[in-house]
């Protein structure tokens, strides 16, 4: 637990108070986005109340595999997140930037973007908070802020949850994070569930969070609950299976331009771009202009793009990254090396989504280990 977190006052909430949290957020005009079971997985969606949370369910994740499983208890947050992160809501996959019309030779822009909705995210994990701060750096704090992102980002409320059960695909502890949320939330919950109790330890990270928490009539944290909390987090920290050695990683990647591993991974890679779609920090977009048949109306759309496509690097004369290996190398080198030069951090938070959702079964931690010339980590038995 960080020093800052240790200073925050902690309270307890029972599951009924969580239901009340939903009503309080809705009374503040927030639309609530939280984990729920959809199409056989747990994923973020717009939800109405606690009963839509995945109570008693978890998702078992391994490389190229994600399966819904019943838990032995009624934990609400006993899972690791699905393919989507907050990116889908704050940096949407498709966004119309404007419409335009031409009449009598005059060209007019028709509409301004609709005002961003107020979104409250429930169940946000430490890795996702760190991903959000990376997106902030890229999309909000750079010289040219992304207006749509800034407008949506400004109006959110975050109820974070400490990770008590990381997946085998998780490696946030290698990327400077951990299962405990350090900051960037309005409210933070830790779920404690056992045979005889189901309680949440809650703390506020902002004054808005304090205000909401106060309404929920929180209880005092007993010594027993504190002990259970520490035990849960210690167990969580010991449960990580994968790791990446980050010391000198930037230099390693820059020096590995001609490494034969790129050919090996290219033989496996589909160039399907799933890794970049699910990555909570991959922010690349393409912009498409379209016109109707009479060439009277035009629209400009922005869509998620990926460095794995051929057109991504299309410049005068053609695409500069025609070979599959050049695209995988570009992605990994940007994430783990060039990102540091550009934005001061790695572009990876170790959430493991690119491992779970790669249909080719490529494991980024294994690729880095291979570039280092070290043995692959133990968790990488070929599942799927």
């Amino acid at each position, binding site marked *: 637990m960080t020093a800052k977190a240790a200073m925050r006052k902690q309270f307890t909430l029972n599951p009924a108070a969580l239901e009340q949290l939903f009503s309080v957020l809705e009374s503040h005009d927030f639309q609530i986005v939280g984990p729920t079971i*959809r*199409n*056989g*997985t747990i*994923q973020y969606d717009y939800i109405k109340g606690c009963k839509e949370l995945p109570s008693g369910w978890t998702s078992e994740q391994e490389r*190229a*595999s*994600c*399966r819904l499983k019943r838990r032995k208890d009624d934990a609400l947050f006993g899972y690791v997140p*699905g*393919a*989507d992160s907050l990116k*889908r809501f704050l940096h949407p*996959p*498709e966004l119309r930037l404007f419409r335009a019309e031409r009449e009598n030779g005059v060209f007019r822009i028709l509409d301004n973007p609709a005002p961003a909705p107020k979104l409250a995210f429930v169940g946000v994990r430490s890795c996702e908070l760190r991903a959000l701060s990376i997106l902030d750096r890229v999309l909000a704090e750079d010289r040219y802020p992304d207006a749509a992102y800034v407008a949506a980002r400004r109006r959110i409320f975050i109820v974070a949850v400490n990770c008590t059960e990381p997946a085998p695909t998780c490696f946030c502890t290698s990327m400077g994070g951990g299962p405990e949320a350090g900051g960037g939330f309005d409210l933070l919950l830790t779920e404690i569930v056992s045979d005889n109790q189901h309680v949440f330890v809650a703390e506020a990270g902002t004054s808005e969070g304090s205000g909401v928490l106060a309404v929920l009539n929180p209880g005092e944290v007993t010594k027993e609950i504190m002990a259970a909390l520490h035990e849960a987090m210690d167990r969580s920290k010991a449960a990580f299976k994968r790791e990446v050695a980050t010391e000198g990683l930037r230099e390693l990647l820059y020096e590995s331009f001609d490494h034969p591993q790129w050919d090996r991974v290219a*033989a*496996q*890679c*589909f*160039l*399907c*771009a*799933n890794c970049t*779609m*699910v990555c909570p920090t991959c922010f690349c977009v393409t912009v*498409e*202009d*379209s*016109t*109707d*048949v*009479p*060439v009277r109306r035009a629209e400009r759309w922005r*869509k*998620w793009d*990926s460095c*794995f*496509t*051929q*057109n991504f690097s299309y410049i005068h004369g053609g695409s500069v990254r*025609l070979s*599959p290996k050049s695209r995988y190398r570009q992605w990994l080198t940007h994430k783990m090396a060039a990102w540091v030069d550009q934005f001061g951090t790695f572009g990876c938070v170790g959430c493991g989504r690119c491992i*779970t*959702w790669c*249909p*080719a*079964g490529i494991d980024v931690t294994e690729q880095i280990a291979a570039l280092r010339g070290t043995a692959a980590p133990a968790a990488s038995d*070929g599942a*799927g």
Partner: protein
Amino acid sequence: MNSDTGMKPKIAIFKFASCDGCQLSLLELEDSLLDLVNAVEIAYFPEASRRMLKGPYDIGLVEGSITTHHDAERIQRVRRESKTLVTIGACATAGGIQALRNWKDVGEFVRFVYAKPDFISTLKMSTPVAEHVPVDFELRGCPINKLHLVELIGAMLAGRKPNIPTYSVCMECKRRGNVCLAVSASLPCLGPVTQAGCGAICPAYHRACYGCFGPMENPNPTALAGRFEAQGHADRDIMRAFRMFNAWSWQFRQVSEERERR
């Protein structure tokens, strides 16, 4: 093709060996159809009108594959009459489902199916238009996405590049928010090697991608077949997965033949 000169570009629609589904999508355009006929002259479209204007045409849309001697000659004429030739659908771009004959003895089919086989004159193979004449643009799909047709014609009229993706179905699938069926259910999904454009319809309804839009740019079907095998699918099933509407596209053909040889 400048819409400001008052001269409407002439469009012709030609049918070869096909089910007509792709050209029908033109008639299914509903509201955009009125815009279309105002902006262009539908000069030759036997499926829709008996008014048939002579060529040359500004845009020739070709549906269907080449399966007879007669069609092999006719496509040369169509090419000469069309300033821009666009193939529409899996038959015209890849040979279609009827290209399954390319691995079999057509003579045997003919003897088996027809009471008087003597009247049947057909080629041994069903081949895509591009194997016979140069093609300017291909619209993929079985059937095509009708909105692609509007997009393509709109782009030609405006003099801009059409927004027709060449990357994987996975990108559309993820943008749409579908759950990956390969990962969540180990289904043999062709999405990772198939060109986007359908909007990832099948995965949205929990069916793995059938590959209607054919191979994407730089596909890796060999690696995908390897994944299917690792998931417990037999060589015969893997071969069949790649032998659908785009079986004769060389990328899918290569991997299906490789699995057939095992």
